C-alpha cells in the first residue's frame, strides 16, 4: 500500500511539474533545429561562431532571390557602384541594446574581417561618408565580389563598434599588414621575411585575444542588429528573442525562436513528426517520408534546388576520354533517371541534356529554340552502340567494347567515400556501364584524399559536383566552375581551345569571361549562356545526372501559419543559408502565430 501511495504521489508531482513547465511559455514562438558551439561565447569570430543563429543575429546588406534575380534590401536601403567604389546607404536602425547602427560599425567590421579571416582584402578602404553612408573602396569591381559584399552576412554586422571597438586599433594594424602581404602576392612580388614574421606575430596574438573574447561573459548579452538576439543557450536548446529595435519589429509577430540541437537526423525526424519543431531540412529516405505522412499528415515538403548538380566527370589527360564519341556513347548508355532514383530520390531529373545550366533554372536561361538544337541524351543504349560502331569500336565475343586500335575500354569510376549519395550513384553508374560492355571498376577515394586525388589527376572518371551556382546563383558562377574553376582543375578539359558551334569557333574560357562581365544585363548574359550551354552539351566535359535539392519539411498550422505557396520564388533563398528564408518570412510578418 505504501509503495502504491509513493507511486501515486510521484505521478501527481510529475503531472503538476509538466503542466507548470508547459504553462510558462512566453508569447508566440517558432521552433527549428540547428547546431551551435557550447559553451556559447556569442562571438562570430570565436570557434563555431554562433551556429544556426547566424542569419537571425546578423544581417546582410541584402538578400538575393536566385529564382528571380531580385535583390531584397535588408540593412542597406540602396547601393551603387561608382568607379572602384561600392556606395551603400544604410538603414537607420539600432542594435538590440539600443545603440544606433552607423557606418562606423561597417568600418570596424571590415577591419575585423581582414584581421581575423584574411578576407575580403579586395576592400582596400572603408570611407565613412556620413552616419548612414559608407563607401567600400575596392581593388576589383568583379560582379561576383559585388554580389558577395551585398549578400554575405559577415560583411556588415559581426563586430559592433561599441562592443569590439576596444580592439579596433590592433585590428587595423593586423589588417593593414595582412593586406600588404596579400597585395604583394597579387602583384607577384616576394613578401619580405621581416614583414611576414611581424604579421604572423601580431596576427596570432590578436586572434588569440579575439577568440577568447565572449560578449556574453563580459556584457551578459550579445548586441545584434538582426531580427533576433540569442538570450539563453544550453547544450541542447538555444532561445532567441525578437530584437525590439529591429527595423521590422513592428511587423514581426513571433516573439521567440527556439532551436533544438540537431543532434542526429533521427532526433530531427522524431521532432518533426511529433510537431516539436516547425521546419527542418534533414535528409530522409523515401520509406521514412512515407511513414511521416501517415503519422503527421500536416507535415509538408518543399524540395528546393540546392544550386548544384552531381555529374560524371572525365579526366582529359587519359587518351580514352579525349574521344568525344566515347563520351557521347557513355551519355546515351547511362540511365540517368535510374541513377537519380537510387542516389537521391528527391533530386531533380536531368536525364535529357547536360548543358551546364541548372535544370530548375533552364526555362529562365535557355530558350526552347536553343534546346531543340542540342543533342538529347535520353537513355538509349542502341544509339550508344551505333555511335561506337560508327567510330570504329568493336564488341568482342567476351561482350566487352574495344577501341578502334583493339584495346578493351576499361576504366574506373572514382568516388569520394564519405559522400554516401555519391557512392550510391557511382555504384549504379559502374553497374550500368558494365552491363553495356565496358570494363568498369569502382574506386573509393578515402576521407581527406579527395582534393589530392582529383587535383593530382589520379583518376579516370569520377562522380563530382558538376555545375554549381554557389555564392552568386547565376549561370556565370556555374560556367566559371566548369571552365575556370574546380571542375577544369580536376578534368583538364581544354577550356581555352576553340570549339565548333553554330556561331563560329568559340572558346568556353573566353565566353565565361565575357559572361562574367554582363551578369547584370540579362539579355546579353543569355546570349553567352546559350553558347556555353551548346558547347557544354555537345562536347561533354561532364555528364550531369541529377540536380541536388534541399528538402524542407514544415508544419503549417501547429504553432505558426503563413508558409508561402510551393511556387513562391522566395523558397530559392534557402540553399546556402536556409535561415534567411525563415528570417524573411518572420520579419515580414508572414509567418504568424496560429490563432
Amino acid at each position, binding site marked *: 500500500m505504501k509503495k502504491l501511495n509513493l507511486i501515486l504521489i510521484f505521478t501527481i508531482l510529475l503531472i503538476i*511539474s509538466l503542466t*507548470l513547465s*508547459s504553462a510558462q511559455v512566453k508569447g508566440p514562438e517558432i521552433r527549428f533545429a540547428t547546431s551551435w558551439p557550447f559553451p556559447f561565447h556569442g562571438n562570430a569570430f570565436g570557434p563555431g561562431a554562433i551556429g544556426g543563429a547566424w542569419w537571425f543575429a546578423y544581417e546582410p546588406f541584402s538578400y538575393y532571390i536566385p529564382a528571380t534575380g531580385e535583390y531584397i534590401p535588408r540593412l542597406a536601403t540602396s547601393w551603387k557602384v561608382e568607379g572602384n567604389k561600392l556606395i551603400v546607404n544604410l538603414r537607420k536602425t539600432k542594435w538590440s541594446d539600443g545603440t544606433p547602427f552607423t557606418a562606423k560599425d561597417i568600418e570596424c567590421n571590415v577591419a575585423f574581417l581582414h584581421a581575423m579571416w*584574411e578576407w575580403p582584402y579586395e576592400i582596400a578602404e572603408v570611407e565613412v561618408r556620413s552616419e548612414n553612408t559608407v563607401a567600400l573602396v575596392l581593388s576589383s569591381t568583379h560582379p561576383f565580389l559585388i554580389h558577395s559584399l551585398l549578400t554575405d552576412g559577415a560583411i556588415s554586422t559581426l563586430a559592433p563598434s561599441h562592443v569590439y571597438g576596444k580592439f579596433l586599433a590592433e585590428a587595423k594594424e593586423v589588417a593593414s599588414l595582412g593586406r600588404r602581404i596579400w597585395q604583394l602576392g597579387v602583384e607577384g612580388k616576394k613578401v619580405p621575411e621581416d614583414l611576414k614574421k611581424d604579421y604572423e606575430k601580431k596576427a596570432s596574438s590578436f586572434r588569440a585575444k579575439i577568440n577568447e573574447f565572449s560578449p556574453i561573459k563580459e556584457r551578459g548579452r550579445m548586441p545584434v542588429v538582426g531580427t533576433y538576439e540569442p538570450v539563453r543557450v544550453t547544450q541542447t*536548446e538555444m532561445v532567441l528573442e525578437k530584437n525590439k529595435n529591429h527595423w521590422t519589429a513592428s511587423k514581426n509577430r513571433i516573439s521567440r525562436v527556439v532551436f533544438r540541437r540537431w*543532434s*542526429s537526423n533521427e*532526433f530531427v525526424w522524431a521532432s518533426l513528426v511529433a510537431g516539436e519543431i516547425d521546419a527542418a531540412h534533414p535528409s530522409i529516405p523515401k520509406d521514412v517520408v512515407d511513414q511521416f505522412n501517415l503519422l503527421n499528415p500536416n507535415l509538408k515538403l518543399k524540395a528546393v534546388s540546392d544550386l548544384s548538380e552531381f555529374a560524371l566527370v572525365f579526366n582529359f589527360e587519359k587518351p580514352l576520354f579525349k574521344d568525344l564519341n566515347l563520351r557521347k556513347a557513355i551519355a546515351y548508355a547511362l540511365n540517368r533517371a535510374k541513377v537519380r532514383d537510387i542516389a537521391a530520390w528527391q533530386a531533380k531529373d536531368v536525364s535529357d541534356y547536360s548543358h551546364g545550366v541548372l535544370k530548375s533554372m533552364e526555362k529562365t536561361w535557355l530558350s526552347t529554340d536553343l534546346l531543340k538544337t542540342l543533342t538529347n541524351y535520353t537513355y538509349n543504349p542502341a544509339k550508344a552502340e551505333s555511335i561506337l560502331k560508327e567510330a570504329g569500336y568493336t564488341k568482342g565475343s567476351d561482350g566487352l567494347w574495344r577501341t578502334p586500335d583493339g584495346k578493351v575500354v576499361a576504366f574506373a569510376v572514382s568516388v569520394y567515400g564519405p559522400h554516401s549519395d555519391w557512392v550510391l550513384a557511382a555504384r549504379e553508374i559502374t553497374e550500368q556501364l558494365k552491363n553495356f560492355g565496358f570494363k568498369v571498376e569502382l574506386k573509393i577515394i578515402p576521407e581527406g584524399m579527395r582534393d589530392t586525388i582529383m587535383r593530382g589527376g589520379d583518376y579516370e572518371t569520377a562522380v563530382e559536383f558538376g555545375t554549381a551556382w554557389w555564392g552568386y546563383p547565376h549561370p556565370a558562377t556555374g560556367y566559371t566552375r566548369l571552365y575556370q*574553376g574546380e571542375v577544369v582543375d580536376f578534368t583538364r578539359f581544354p577550356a581555352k581551345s576553340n570549339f565548333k558551334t553554330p556561331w563560329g569557333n568559340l572558346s568556353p574560357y573566353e565566353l565565361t569571361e565575357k559572361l562574367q562581365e554582363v551578369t547584370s544585363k540579362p539579355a546579353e548574359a543569355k546570349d553567352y549562356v546559350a553558347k556555353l550551354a551548346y558547347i557544354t552539351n555537345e562536347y561533354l566535359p561532364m555528364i550531369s545526372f541529377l540536380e541536388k535539392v534541399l528538402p524542407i519539411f514544415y508544419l503549417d498550422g501547429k504553432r505558426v501559419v503563413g508558409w508561402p505557396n510551393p511556387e513562391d520564388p522566395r523558397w530559392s533563398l534557402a540553399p546556402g543559408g536556409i535561415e534567411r528564408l525563415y528570417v524573411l518570412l518572420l520579419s515580414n510578418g508572414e509567418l504568424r502565430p496560429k490563432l
Partner: protein
Amino acid sequence: MKYILNRLIQVFIMTFLALTVVFFIVQSMPGDPAFGLAVSIAQTRNMSLEKALEIAHNIIGYNPKEPIILKYIKFLKNIFVGNFGYSTYFKTSVNEIIGKALPWTLFVISLATAFGFFAGTTLGALSAQKRGTFIDTFIATLFSIIQAIPAFVLAVFILFIGAVRLRLLPLGGAYPVEMTPGFYPGFILALIHHALGPLIATSIPQMASWGLAMRGNCSNIIEEDFVRFAKIRGLSDSVISQKYIRKNAILPLVASLAIGIGYMLGGHTLVEVIFNYPGIGYYFGQAISARDFGLLTGLFSLIVIGVVFATFITELLYAIIDPRVKAQ
C-alpha cells in the same frame, strides 16, 4: 596500509602508461583540425588548398609543426595539475567542457548503471534459481533478445514509441527550456522526466548483460558442494539464495561494474545524440569529427583516470567483501 600503498604506486604507474598511450594514439590519428575550414576557404575564395590550409591554421591557431615531444611534456605537466588541456575547436579549456557536461552524463549513466546492475543481477539470480521453469525461460529469452538488438535501434525505438507515438517522454533536452534551473520539486521532477528516455535506453541493455552474466554465475554456484550442504542443513531457500548463491555469484561482476563506472565518464554518445540529451558523449563526437586532438586527449585521459581509480577502489572493496582477498 602497505597493501594500499603498493596498490597506489601501481595505480600511478598504470595511469602514467595509459595516459602516454592515449596521447600518442590520439596524436597519430590522421587528419588536420583545420582541413574542413581550409576546404571551405579554398572554395569560397577560389585559392589553392595549401594556401587555404595556411590561412585556416592561422584562424584556428593550430600549429601542425609543433614537435610532438614538446606537446607530450606539456600534456603531462598539465594533467599532473589537473588540467585536461585545451580544445582547439571550442577554444576553451577541456576542464570547462567537462565541468559543464559531466554532471548530466553522471546523472543519467550512474542511475542507468545502478538500475541495470541491480535489476539485472536480481533477475539473473532469480532466473538461475528457477531453472527450467517458465520464469527462467522468459527472463533468459528476453535478455538474449535485448542483447541482440543494436543499441542504436533500441534507442530509436524508445524515442519513437515513448516520445512520438505515446507522448509519454519529452523530446530532447535535460529540462523544459522555459524552466529556470533550481532546487525545487517541479524542476527536479522535470529533470527526471527528461532523463527517462536516455535512462531506459542505457539501462535496458545493461540490465540484460548483467542478468545473463549473473544467471551463468549463479548456475555454476548452485552446483557447488557448499550449496548442497546448506540445503542438507535445512536452510531456507531465501537464506541459501541471499547468503550462499547471490553473494558469491556477484563478486566477479563487481570488477566489471568498476570498469563500467570508469567508462561512465566517457558518456554515451549514441544515446545523447538520439535523445538530444546533454553530456560528455556529444563532445566526443565533436572532437572526432573536428579532429580536435586537445579535446580528444583530455576526454580520453578522463576515462583512463576514471577506470584506473574505479578499479583501485573496487580492489579495496573486494578486500572488504571477499574474505579470501582480505586474508591475502
